[in-house]
């Protein structure tokens, strides 16, 4: 999977919860209050399932899940998607 495909997938998932706003890939979704704290667990479940990855404890910081950019970077670091 390419980074662009991964971003599209993550945006589509978030789009179900942030329907009315435009959000940029760099926007901090938690800090901006676009989603609530429950979303953190939902994002872990989503990424682990759709990208067939199991995150280690050190991966699980809100920073790593705070934006489309951060999640894409995390997936690159975990070797799930290419670095392009």
């Amino acid at each position: 999977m390419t980074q662009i495909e991964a971003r599209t997938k993550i945006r589509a998932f978030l789009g179900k919860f942030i329907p009315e706003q435009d959000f940029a890939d760099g926007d901090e979704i938690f800090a901006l209050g676009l989603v609530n704290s429950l979303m953190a667990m939902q994002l872990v479940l989503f990424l682990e399932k759709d990208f067939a990855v199991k995150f280690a404890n050190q991966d699980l910081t809100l920073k790593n899940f705070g934006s489309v950019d951060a999640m894409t970077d995390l997936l690159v670091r975990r070797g799930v998607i290419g670095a392009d």
Partner: protein
Amino acid sequence: MTLQDYLGVSVAPCAEAWDREERVPRRVLTELAGLGVLGAHISAAQGGRGRPATEWGEMLEAVGAESMSLLSILTVHAMCSFAVARWGDAATQEEYLADFVSGRKIGGFALTEPAVGSDAKAVATRFVDAGENWSVSGCKKWISAAELVDVFLVFGQTEDGPTALLVPRLTRGLSVVPISGSLGFRAARTCEVKFDHVLVPKRWTIGPQGQGFGWVASSALDVGRFCIACGSTGLIRACIRASSAYARDRRQFGVPLGEHQLIQAMLAEMTTDYKAARALWRAAAKEREDLQPGSIVETTTAKYFASTASSRASNHAVQIHGANGCGPDFPVQRYFRDARVTEIIEGSNQMQQLMIARDALAAFAPKRGK
């Protein structure tokens, strides 16, 4: 022996006495472990029984139909053991998981404090750096079955923020003070748990330091809500069981109570509630088996519905039993007291409403035309 047989022989006849004595015998947990209940939610790869959520839910519903106090002990044990299985490091899992599955150790959950309830990330308990240890100081309140629990999952503040830590009950500086006379769940007697400079190895930290609320508490509460959803559904079943027997055997105005249409109306409502609650937890279980992100909201919905429906059903059950429903000779007054508690624990129903509504605002609102 099947779980159903065990519950019929060893739980149903004792549940009233446990409620009065405010305790469940420790051996019951060991025996339930032998029947695969305590490790059902832990994967086989981690040494658990690895049962699908649907099957685990059936076990929890069956227990809830006999004793919600016992169900509540299973709930906190599941929350603590799940957290270790999901977030603990390999050495901690090695140290604890087998004992959680076999029932040699019972896990507890220590989040709530005298001044901190729903706003859980504001906990005041402190984890102070003491070299290889954390020094834990603070007070937890309303901690289920704390006299029986072997190890608590405790939430406190480090310099980095809320953090989760496993603390064995028998540790110097930890004291447990029971709270008698609660409304419901009496046999899972809640306690105050006080920590006075309790030294706990840092390696028992569960999950990322400073992220104990967003990840560890949230996911453990999700497990807890699933348990309460299934257990409350069992409680509705118990209300129907007691009320239909009573309505068949008791005669007024020359006919059995069950011939009176106003009694029938209550039984119809209770039965519909039971079927709906069951459908909701099973839908949540299916999502959990498929590891769907939507499982969290499905579970919340199931907990919200089953808990409020169990209150309605137990209210009807007392009404159908009349004065007998208020007395000590029928179990429905216990059902009534226990049902009320389900609307508060593992997140008050107001908190559940917030989650369900936020999801609805995103999921159901029609998309605006571009």
